[in-house]
């Protein structure tokens, strides 16, 4: 026949409103649509039965709703729901194995049946769409079977731009070394005069000092030259080896621009050297300054860092914090990992805290009330400690000071430190931070203690007997030094780790709190669908039901495996992924899931002007909903791991 056939076009139009079809080229969707069949199922019809073999069709739900029922022994358990825009049967088709569940229409359904072989071929040609479909396979973990996906190899975590949950977002910028001719180098024996002439001729702010194999041994910046020759008055014949900064901070080629930026922020340096393998023991390829990395971006975290160091007035601090917030929004919307954004914010907020403490210290000294001359330290705890406090909706901090040995003088010191903390926290509040609802602040005597008091608490197994103690303990495990004497914090941190590492009871209590909450199955419209009972329409608590189990599991598993190096949840999962082979797969998934939740929560918070903790299921897009459902599956897998690892199913 047949003149202008509207049917495939209309079917394609419907398909393309939903992933993975929205990710495929339009003409491919039309080609699929022209091979489609259309079928109907009345409410109550079984579309397929558990144990049947899949045919050669994938079913797209145009209208209606389908439930997956899992029959075990005599029971039938609802394990998932699918509605408009979902595809049924991916798992069985992908694995060519019998259906593990029964699919039952709970409303009248209109279904497009698509030829599986053709669909698969097209999905395989499109990374984004394929990733989307692979994620669909996770739900099977609800039936107690493990999921193994062949992952694309990712060479370094910092360098990977696409992970399983971010696949749909463009990754962060990658450092690509520029032509080697651009790299300005000299040898350690060259004079500073020669170095300066070269820099001046090439108009670059630094020169790399390399050995015969072009391995970087040091770097000379214009500031260093100025200081050497003008301030220190060194003669121009002085060899560069005398003035260069060494060792050189290096990254590998193709590492993430954002990660490198973070490295510069943390080390307070203006440039990094790119080498072949990322260490100083391989040939240098390029030198990148933050300007190179952020050339296109109007905002500039390093610039803000400098501004923070110079600001004095509360109003200015507030402006700067607002700037930080808009950077956060830009980064997250551009697809930068929320975990990295958290790290950037932590550096900036740490700088702010340090600056405020300097100002308060000056102020108190001027009033004739200086701090006592004993070691003290300001700590971030809780989410701040994990470098996950992106928005100013909370603060968690604490103070430790060295005990003087007498309780009377400890009392005097405490009063002074409380005064100090109160002033710092008042300034933070003026900068836009909300006070901690739970009172986790250094101005609270419970969170401003001598190191002996802290150590007593941390070493006592008592804390794990009550709920409050458990909560306090988990907040403390995430403590991180911000200002003052770092050794005081190190001591507390190692005490916390030693106590829990050697206390199976404590571990068990922590493990129990992780498996206590059951993540929901899915969302339908405005409803949260639970495993038992019907759907409920209410705001969904992203933090308690999604993030908390992942965060607590990361902490517990690193404690158990004696890893103390990492502070953030993302970092902990990364370390577990690399160091504990049996956890490697689940840790990778958990990190991505946490990253996704953190991003969703932060963007939600920016949109609503609150902490972003509660989301309205009705506002989720199809893609977000599918991603969340997968995140919950990852949470369930993590909970199963914890249950097995800590033998929670057997009584002690």
């Amino acid at each position: 026949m047949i003149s202008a056939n509207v049917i495939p076009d209309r079917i394609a139009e419907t398909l393309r409103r939903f992933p993975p079809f929205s990710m495929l080229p339009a003409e491919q969707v039309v080609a699929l649509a022209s091979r489609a069949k259309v079928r109907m199922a009345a409410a109550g019809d079984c579309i397929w039965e558990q144990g049947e073999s899949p045919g050669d069709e994938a079913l797209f739900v145009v209208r209606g709703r389908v439930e997956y029922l899992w029959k075990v022994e005599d029971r039938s358990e609802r394990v998932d729901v699918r509605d408009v825009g979902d595809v049924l049967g991916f798992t069985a088709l992908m694995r060519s194995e019998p259906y593990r569940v029964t699919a039952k229409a709970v409303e009248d359904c209109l279904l497009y049946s698509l030829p599986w072989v053709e669909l698969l071929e097209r999905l395989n040609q499109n990374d984004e769409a394929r990733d989307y479909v692979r994620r669909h396979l996770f739900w099977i973990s609800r039936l107690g079977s493990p999921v193994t996906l062949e992952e694309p190899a990712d060479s370094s975590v910092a360098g990977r731009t696409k992970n399983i949950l971010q696949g749909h977002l463009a990754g962060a910028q990658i450092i690509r070394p520029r032509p080697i001719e651009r790299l300005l180098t000299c040898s350690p024996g060259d004079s500073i005069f020669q170095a300066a002439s070269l820099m001046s001729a090439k108009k670059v702010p630094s020169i790399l000092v390399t050995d015969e194999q072009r391995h970087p041994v040091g770097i000379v910046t214009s500031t260093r030259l100025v200081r050497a020759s003008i301030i220190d008055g060194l003669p121009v014949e002085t060899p560069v080896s005398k003035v260069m900064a060494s060792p050189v901070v290096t990254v590998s080629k193709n590492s993430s621009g954002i990660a490198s930026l973070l490295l510069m922020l943390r080390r307070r340096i203006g440039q990094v050297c790119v080498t072949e393998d990322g260490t100083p023991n391989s040939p240098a390829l390029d030198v990148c300054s933050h300007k190179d990395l952020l050339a296109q971006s109007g905002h500039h975290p390093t610039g803000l860092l400098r501004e923070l160091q110079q600001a004095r007035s509360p109003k200015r601090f507030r402006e700067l914090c607002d700037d930080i917030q808009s950077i956060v929004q830009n980064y997250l919307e551009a697809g930068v990992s929320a975990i990295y954004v958290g790290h950037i914010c932590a550096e900036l907020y740490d700088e702010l805290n340090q600056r405020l403490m300097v100002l308060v210290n000056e102020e108190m000294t001027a009033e004739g009330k200086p701090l006592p001359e004993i070691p003290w330290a300001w700590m971030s705890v809780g989410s701040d400690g994990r470098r996950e406090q992106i928005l100013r909706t909370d603060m968690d901090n604490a103070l430790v000071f060295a005990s003087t040995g007498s309780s009377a003088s400890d009392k005097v010191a405490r009063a002074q430190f409380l005064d100090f903390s109160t002033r710092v926290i008042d300034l933070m509040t003026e900068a836009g931070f909300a006070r901690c609802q739970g009172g986790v602040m250094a101005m609270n005597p419970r969170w401003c203690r001598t190191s002996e008091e802290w150590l007593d608490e941390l070493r006592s197994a008592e804390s794990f007997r009550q709920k409050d103690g458990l909560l306090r303990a988990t907040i403390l495990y995430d403590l991180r030094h911000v200002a003052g004497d770092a050794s005081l914090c190190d001591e507390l941190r190692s005490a916390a780790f030693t106590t829990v590492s050697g206390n199976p009871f404590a571990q068990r209590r922590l493990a129990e709190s992780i498996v206590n909450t059951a993540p929901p199955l899915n969302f339908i419209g405005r409803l949260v669908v639970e495993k038992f009972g019907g759907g409920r329409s209410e705001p969904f608590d992203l933090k308690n039901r999604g993030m908390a189990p992942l965060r607590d599991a990361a902490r517990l598993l690193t404690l158990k495996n004696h890893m103390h190096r990492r502070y953030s949840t993302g970092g902990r999962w990364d370390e577990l992924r690399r160091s504990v082979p049996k956890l490697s797969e689940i840790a990778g998934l958990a990190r991505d899931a946490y990253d996704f939740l953190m991003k969703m929560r932060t963007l939600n918070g920016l949109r609503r002007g609150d902490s972003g903790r509660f989301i309205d299921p009705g506002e989720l897009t199809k893609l977000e909903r599918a991603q969340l459902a997968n995140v919950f599956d990852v949470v369930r897998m993590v909970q199963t791991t914890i249950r097995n690892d800590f033998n929670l199913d057997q009584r002690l």
Partner: protein
Amino acid sequence: MFGFGKKSLPDFAEAYLAKTSSKRPAKAIPLEQLRFAVIDTETTGFEIGRDRLLSIGLVIVAEDRIEVEQSGGWLIQQSDVPLNDAVRIHGIMPDESAEGEPEAEVLKDLLPRIADTIFVAHHTGFDLGMINSALFRHYALKLRNPWLDTAEMAIKTLDAFARTNYVAQRPPGLDEVCQQCDIRPMARHTATGDAFTTAEVLLSLCARLRRHLGRPLTAGDLPIHRG
């Protein structure tokens, strides 16, 4: 068969007649084994015999599914298209009709596709009448497929349209049935779109009947008439 047929029929018509029985399919045949040709026509008016076909939409349903690949439509060339109410509804203008294919060619293309199927339309009498009238003009032939009317089936299946004793009760229109079955019509008032929508109605009515009876359907459950 037609005793008086002196002039022999063209091959494609003979092939159609050889394949197609006018008998209703045996009652026990499962629904999945029935093949339906769902048809909609757009015409120059509503008087069979005088008015002409402007387009035909065809959607094949087999194994209880619409087969998109087997479905589509024809635009038919007519020299004399009046600008009347009917044209206002479907919007096929004279110059557009001029782009179509000759009626005789379209019918020749249509026949093998609907051989050995059950003819389905919403208000079958009209679409069947229009096609038969054209077939008779060109080839002295009439369709012999058994047929099913989705309007009649809706009356039998949906409570909303159940027969009352009201004398002026008329069979429900396609839009009314769609609303009742929660079907969003595709490209209403194009032959292909309406044929597709009618096919959806057929599937939906079958699904409802299946739920009502609580068992798989067979040919005996459907109001199929002898051709």
